[in-house]
């Protein structure tokens, strides 16, 4: 089979080309920085010119520090800093200068550090040693300090050090991330020190709202994600995917595998029936996290309870995800980092269609009248042709035949999925950064590129994103710091969308396996077949471009010790362009029924949109300590405003297809515009108090106003409180120190307001209290044109206000066995009060849905558990982590006294996600019928069915009416024969991580899943299809008189009535949507330091990774639980294999 793949080749080439360009830019940038680095390396040889006379030694040192990159280390008690010195140096080396200054020559130069030794040297000697980590690799740059004199040195590239110290000195050896060691010298001259990795991370700092806190002092339910570990080397394009499954209570999902599509996220289940998503803040201000290069991210904190989120007030009701991006480090040489990741993808699983023979045999069993299929073919004749073809395909080279009457019989088995997909999709991530800083400045510059071409043929399913970020911070003086953070993201997504008569996805699923997929010649012209591959190949994709430019300016004042005042201004402009050119092309209809146009009139639609977002944060932090009391205060002000404008233009009959434009189209232009604005403003505070590090208290609050509510109910106040008790610090617990590292009990209570009311299209309603009228073009034509008109406004209550969310949270953190085992547990209950809900369903005479009032309450309760284990056996390190969470929501108040059941109808006591349906009893059998075809007494029939037949579904009767199965009044008080048969809320979601390290190797595995979930499926594979549409392997087992033990009921070739009664929501066909997925397996190897240094590198790591490798579930092949809510099959999830390298130099 010939495959046309030029389109794809072109695009790969383009990608590579742009990648090359990028590399060049990166190289240039690197080169510039390398120059800088080189300069500072050779600074040691810099000549110094300086004239000083009769100044204090301390001043002289300060002057030298200012003029050179050198820093002095000394101990005040050992050296008389007030003594007068003079210096006259001209082009002198640093040594010459120092020799003048310090008569005793008691100093040493270590790189940039000049260590001044005691004026009166004691009896000491050189001590040499080596500092190693547990795996025996040298630790470079570890500090070795004589505890008494504070003089010290750092280890060299081989981990070696030399220090002058008394024979009985006490040396402190320390390095970041390792547990410091004290070594009491007893005359040794040579030492080997092995530092243990600090797994307890007890000083770990977690980012919280407008500040940071030590993890041990946290009292709220805050989870921090070690992104560098979870992101690791996985082939994923955005940070949302990296967070999936990492944190109990954080639920992230996607419905399809379309490259570039955003994923949804949720914290702790349903907060409000009005929907809403967690607030995602990047450096304190909301941002689309899909526009950030994940490599930019320093830390991610998830604020789950009200106590920790309340500081963000108005928008924090659904929890907060705090993202802090990377900055530079002071006093550090430029660090270059380059990561890449090249991956190849394939559909994880695809639906399996029934073969032509299976399909035709099934049609036969369905009992089509007169043995004639819907399109007029004789089924037996068809079966004969297929069998004949199967025994000798050579007889029918085309795979189909027209019989003497001109009837078409399709015989060959085809695979639409193969046609429409490439051998593999391709994705590449590159990111490069350089960061560093001097004493007063820090900087970081990063560039990232992600390019993905999905698994469909051509590049019409692709996603590209380029990111650039710059951070610059300057300490203007001792009390003023300014920072500037620029981020720019630019993405381009192509999405396959339209087909001809069907969309690509519908066609791929619904065309039976015998349907032609090859070109066809008619009247001397070759036409493409009516197939999904044709739609993709010849149709135009939807093109979505996004730009995101964000400027953050920050000023930090530290006028007093402990006081820090921060002012931030963020400007964020996002713009997008959504273009869709629906082009006109021709293909041959199914069954060769003539040449069809994909559309009668080509058309071009463009939506341009931009949003200006302005945010101001002013806040002050003050910390003080007296005695055993630690107090932190924080207070601040926040205001944000957003203005969005969009324009839509549409015109039919595009003249030049290769360059679609509105100007060059001839149809009547249709245009419209839209505006959205909102503003919020708030005052907030936080008070932390701790006594002796054991008793922790925190109070938060926010006074918040929003433009989304009427003036008189615009503001709300939302306080929260939390407390912690570090039991392990109590003296009575000291006996357990050997294995109990940390035990903290936590409790919190807080309230948050919710001001986000979603419209039916899932965007926030910015004017929910203003009954606005929708302007649209009427389908009534005036003078041949659609005419502008207005819809009636919805009913609006002018008095509504905030939904309030109260969360009560109890939890504990338990760390055991020298912090090898970390456990966190939280139980919570969240009450959403005064949800905006239709006051009550109104009788139909009102003609509108009831106005929304703060009239409904919801209760959500759940728990979260996270356990991590990390240890070392010899040179093998291993780790394992497990997290599990669950939540359920229940309506506690709702104006539905009648107890009506239905979609989007709630009632008191209702568990969200509940599924009402019938209980399947069995199939009707011949025995149930009298000879005249009526049912025997006592056997019920579905009301309205008229007549049933053997093989139809018999439901269990529950109500008094034993003659009929019916929905009763469809209320909870009279549900007829309906029952609650399941719940589609995902329960017991879990994530499992495990890893092993040995020398430089690291193998990690990540699994995640859902323990329990029901789902009523509506996809194409849910039922056997009678007429048009495809049968699948899974849908062949249906009832026939010969196969009464089937899974599916009788299939009617045409009857809609009995079919609909057989397919009522019911127990037998309720899907089990639980699953377990191998999300990722990565093997990486970090090259030995010694090797790296030989090629002037700090760190080199290479890896191979497999993403989304397998799913165990209870669904037909090709379908995944996460897709079910889409209702129909679409872009499959992809499994990816990737390899890449990570270099730091």
């Amino acid at each position: 089979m010939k495959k046309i793949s030029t389109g794809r080749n072109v695009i790969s080439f383009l990608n590579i080309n742009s990648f090359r360009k990028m590399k060049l830019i990166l190289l240039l940038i690197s080169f510039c920085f390398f120059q800088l680095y080189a300069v500072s390396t050779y600074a040691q040889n810099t000549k110094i010119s300086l004239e000083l006379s009769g100044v204090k030694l301390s001043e002289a040192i300060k002057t030298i520090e200012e003029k050179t990159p050198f820093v002095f280390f000394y101990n005040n008690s050992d050296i008389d800093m007030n003594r007068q010195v003079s210096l006259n140096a001209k082009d002198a080396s640093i040594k010459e200068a120092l020799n003048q200054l310090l008569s005793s020559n008691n100093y040493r130069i270590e790189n940039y550090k000049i260590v001044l030794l005691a004026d009166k040297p004691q009896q000491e000697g050189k001590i040499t040693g080596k500092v190693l980590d547990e795996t025996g690799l040298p630790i470079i740059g570890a500090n070795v300090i004589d505890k008494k004199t504070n003089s010290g040195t750092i280890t060299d590239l081989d981990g070696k050090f030399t220090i002058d110290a008394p024979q009985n000195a006490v040396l402190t050896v320390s390095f970041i991330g390792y547990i410091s060691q004290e070594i009491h010298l007893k005359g040794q001259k040579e030492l080997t020190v092995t530092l243990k990795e600090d797994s307890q991370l007890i000083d770990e700092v977690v980012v919280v709202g407008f500040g940071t806190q030590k993890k041990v002092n946290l009292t709220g339910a805050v989870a921090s994600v070690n992104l560098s570990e979870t992101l690791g080397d996985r082939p994923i394009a955005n940070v949302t995917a990296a967070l999936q499954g990492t944190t109990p209570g954080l639920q992230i999902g996607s419905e399809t595998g379309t490259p570039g599509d955003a994923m949804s996220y949720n914290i702790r289940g349903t907060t409000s029936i009005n929907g809403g998503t967690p607030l995602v803040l990047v450096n304190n201000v909301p941002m689309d996290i899909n526009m950030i290069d994940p490599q930019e991210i320093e830390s991610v904190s998830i604020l789950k309870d009200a106590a920790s989120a309340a500081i963000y007030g108005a928008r924090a009701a659904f929890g907060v995800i705090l993202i802090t991006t990377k900055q530079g480090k002071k006093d550090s040489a430029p660090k270059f980092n380059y990561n890449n990741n090249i991956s190849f993808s394939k559909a994880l699983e695809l639906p399996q269609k029934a073969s032509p023979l299976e399909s035709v045999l099934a049609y036969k069993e369905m009992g089509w009248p007169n043995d004639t299929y819907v399109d007029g073919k004789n089924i037996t004749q068809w079966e004969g042709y297929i069998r004949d073809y199967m025994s000798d395909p050579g007889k029918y080279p085309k795979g189909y035949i027209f019989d003497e009457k001109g009837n078409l019989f399709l015989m060959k088995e085809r695979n639409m999925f193969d046609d429409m997909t490439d051998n593999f999709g391709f994705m590449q991530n590159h990111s490069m950064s350089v960061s560093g800083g001097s004493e007063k400045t820090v900087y970081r510059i990063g560039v990232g590129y992600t390019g993905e071409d999905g698994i469909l043929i051509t590049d019409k399913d692709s996603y590209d994103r380029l990111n650039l970020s710059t951070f610059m911070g300057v300490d203007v003086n001792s009390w003023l710091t300014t920072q500037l953070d620029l981020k720019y993201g630019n993405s381009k997504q192509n999405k396959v969308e339209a087909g001809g008569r069907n969309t690509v996805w519908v066609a791929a699923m619904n065309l039976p396996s015998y349907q032609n997929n090859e070109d066809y010649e008619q009247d001397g012209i070759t036409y493409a077949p009516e197939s999904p591959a044709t739609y993709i190949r010849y149709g135009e994709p939807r093109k979505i471009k996004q730009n995101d430019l964000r400027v953050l300016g920050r000023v930090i004042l530290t006028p007093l010790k402990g006081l820090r005042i921060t002012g931030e201004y963020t400007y964020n402009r996002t713009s997008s362009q959504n273009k869709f050119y629906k082009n006109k092309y021709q293909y041959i209809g199914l069954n060769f029924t003539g040449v069809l146009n994909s559309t009668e009139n080509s058309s071009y639609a463009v939506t341009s949109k931009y949003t200006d977002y302005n945010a101001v944060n002013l806040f002050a932090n003050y910390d003080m300590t007296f005695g055993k009391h630690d107090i932190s205060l924080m207070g601040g002000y926040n205001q944000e405003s957003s203005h969005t404008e969009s324009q839509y233009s549409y015109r039919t009959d595009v003249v030049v297809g290769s360059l679609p434009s509105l100007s060059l189209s001839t149809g009547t232009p249709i245009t419209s515009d839209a505006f959205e604005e909102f503003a919020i403003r708030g005052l907030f505070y936080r008070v932390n108090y701790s006594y002796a590090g054991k008793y922790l208290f925190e109070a938060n609050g926010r006074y918040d106003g929003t433009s989304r509510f009427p003036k008189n109910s615009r503001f709300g106040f939302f306080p929260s409180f939390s407390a912690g008790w570090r039991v392990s610090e109590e003296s009575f617990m000291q006996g357990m120190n050997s294995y109990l590292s940390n035990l903290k009990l936590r409790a919190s209570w807080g309230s948050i307001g919710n001001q986000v009311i979603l419209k039916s299209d899932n965007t926030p309603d910015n004017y929910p209290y203003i009954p606005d009228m929708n302007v649209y073009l009427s389908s009534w034509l005036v003078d041949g044109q659609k005419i502008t008109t207005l819809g009636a406004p919805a009913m609006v209550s002018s008095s509504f206000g905030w939904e309030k969310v109260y969360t009560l949270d109890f939890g504990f953190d338990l760390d055991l066995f020298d912090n090898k085992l970390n456990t966190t547990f939280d139980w919570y209950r969240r009450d959403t009060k005064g949800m905006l809900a239709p006051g009550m369903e109104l009788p139909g005479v009102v003609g509108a849905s009831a106005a929304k009032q703060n009239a409904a309450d919801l209760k959500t309760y759940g728990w979260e558990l996270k356990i991590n284990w990390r240890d070392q056996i010899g040179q093998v390190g291993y780790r394992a982590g497990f997290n599990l969470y669950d939540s359920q929501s229940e309506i506690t108040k709702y104006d539905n006294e009648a107890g009506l059941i239905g979609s989007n109808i709630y009632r008191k006591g209702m568990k969200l996600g509940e599924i009402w349906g019938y209980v399947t009893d069995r199939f009707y059998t011949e025995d149930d019928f009298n000879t005249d075809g009526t049912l025997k007494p006592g056997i019920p029939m579905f009301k309205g069915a008229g007549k049933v037949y053997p093989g139809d579904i018999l439901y269990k009767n529950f109500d008094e009416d034993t003659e009929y199965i019916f929905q009763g009044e469809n209320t909870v008080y009279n549900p007829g024969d309906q029952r609650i048969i399941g719940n589609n809320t995902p329960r017991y979601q879990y994530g499992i991580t495990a890893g092993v390290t040995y020398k430089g190797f690291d193998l990690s595995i990540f699994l995640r899943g859902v323990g329990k979930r029901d789902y009523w499926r509506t996809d194409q594979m849910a039922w056997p299809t009678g007429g048009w549409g495809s049968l699948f392997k899974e849908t062949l087992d249906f009832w026939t008189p010969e196969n009464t033990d089937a899974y599916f009921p009788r299939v009617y070739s045409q009857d809609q009535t009995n079919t609909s009664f057989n397919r009522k929501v019911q127990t037998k066909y309720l899907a089990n949507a639980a699953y377990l997925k191998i999300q990722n397996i990565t093997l990486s190897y970090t090259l030995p330091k010694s090797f790296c240094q030989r090629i002037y590198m700090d760190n080199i790591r290479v890896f191979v990774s497999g993403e989304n490798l397998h799913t165990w579930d209870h669904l037909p092949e090709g379908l995944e639980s996460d897709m079910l809510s889409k209702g129909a099959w679409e872009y499959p999830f992809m499994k990816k294999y990737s390899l890449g390298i990570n270099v730091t130099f």
Partner: protein
Amino acid sequence: MLLSKINGTIMKTFKIIFGLLLILGFSGCMNNDFLERYPLGNPTAETVFKSYDNFKTYAWGLYETFPALSYGETNTDNISYNSTRGSGETDWIRGIVVPPSNTTNTPWAQYSFIRRVNLMLDHIESSEMSETEREHWRSVGYFFRSYRYMTLLSAYGGVPWVDHVLADDETDIIYGARESRDVIANHILEDLQYAEQHINQNGDGANTINRVVVQTLLSRFCLFEGTWRKYHALQEADKFLRECKRASEEVLKVYPNIHSNYDDLFNSLSLNGIPGIILYKAYSNEAGVVHATSIGGTTAQSFYNVTRDMVDSYLCSDGKPRWNSPMYLGDKDIYNEFSNRDHRLWLHVTPPYVVDRSESTTAWDNKWKFTDNPKDRSFIDSINMIVPAERQKTLPFRQGYDGGILGENPHFDFYLNGQPWYKSAFGYNNWKYFNTYLSMGSQRNEETDMPIFRVEEVMLNYAEAMVELGEFTQATADMTINKIRSRTNVSPMVVSQINESFDPKRDLGNSSYSGDYAVSPLLWEVRRERRIELFAENFRFDDLRRWKKCQYAMKKKLGQYVRKSDFPEGTAVTIDGGAEEGYLEFHPSPDKLWPEYYYLYPIPLNQMVLNPNIKQNPGWE
């Protein structure tokens, strides 16, 4: 419990503290203009209803309530809806209608449209318009509101009357009981009469609601209500029939003539300027407003067949019923059956023909030629004669796109002979809306305009009212039915000839239904003309309901006369009574009578749950 108590206490404390803070002056500067944001794009009711043009803009949306024409009438004796052999027809005919659980897709849902009209009416007083302008928009509002109350009245009888936008505290109306049929009918009547007097005579330009349109609706409504009352034993039938007569006369003054070609009314790219078209719904592919009526009646799995009963009702060219006309050639041969008949039969039911497709190599090819048998092409020629070629209702039949020539018609679903489409169970396919205008492609973007009100209906309303009033004369016939017949190849009606024996198959009453009545010969003929002229325009079910003659729909539906021997051995041909030759059968005969209570629809169940004062129509409980 405890939690909410804690919530309460804590909130109280903090409210006090914060109250103090606010008093200190914070609130003023916090709650200022910065937080005042209003919609920049969409207007509100307060801002939008000011000028005449504002009202006009809003009112265009009300026009959307007019339905699109579609193949319907499946609950009647005109059409047999054929999808599954052996199971029966619509739920109404099968007698298995179940009260719907909610208002979705029920007439009760019209209240949201009524609210939309009321919103406009509510804002007339506060507008900046002159009194005349106010009267005009009040009239337009009343027209649309009445149009939809008619739907409610027809379906349910009395319903709650809502004449303004309800606020959620107007519980006496929201939770009130249904008004009587009289109250609703009189509101409609009065509102339409007001509109007739006060609307701009010419509306708002071409093809808009104007005085004649209002009068047309009056004519339709009053005939419906008058006859309903007469045959359902209610009072005041005459009042409505007289009003029908009066309003119809007004319309006929303005539209005395009809267009010369019947097919043009349903298969024209534009109905603008076509005589007798009072209001129409325009379609345009370019504007993106299209329908799919042309071949929509015959999809692969369901098809709408004209019944034998319907076919039998067309008169012969001499103006006599087929039962006793000497021109009738018999029904054993469909060519004969179609000969010497009302031309509307040819335009409603695809006439028979055969062509030679031997040059076509596939089932979908479009190469054809005439056969050597002149009979095979006779109706191809006839159709091309009565429908000018440019109007595109041509034979041989082809699918909407170029190609797919149907080799012969009738074309049966049980003997497809290799051509799956345009199949028929009865041999009689409804092709009233069929045309091959343009190349419609696979998208079925059809753009022929569709009449909403046409004068022929008013003529028939008038004729029927006059019969009911006992005032029907030859003059009445000449200004109505005979005008209509002028384009149908049927001799004019001569009132004096219509006697007891004019149609031997006339309905003489059915004893299975208590109180059923015999239809008088004149009324029978007027109803016949209505049935034929307005075929497939969705009048028939309401007509049967108001005449209390739904039992017509329960008659066994049969098709063309065939012989088993016409088909290859083994073809499953279902013939009435299992005979070797006879009329085609599809559904078995319904073994039920039309239940009396089926004349009104069931009210959606949730309405009675939400408002216990709403009581279900009798029989549906």
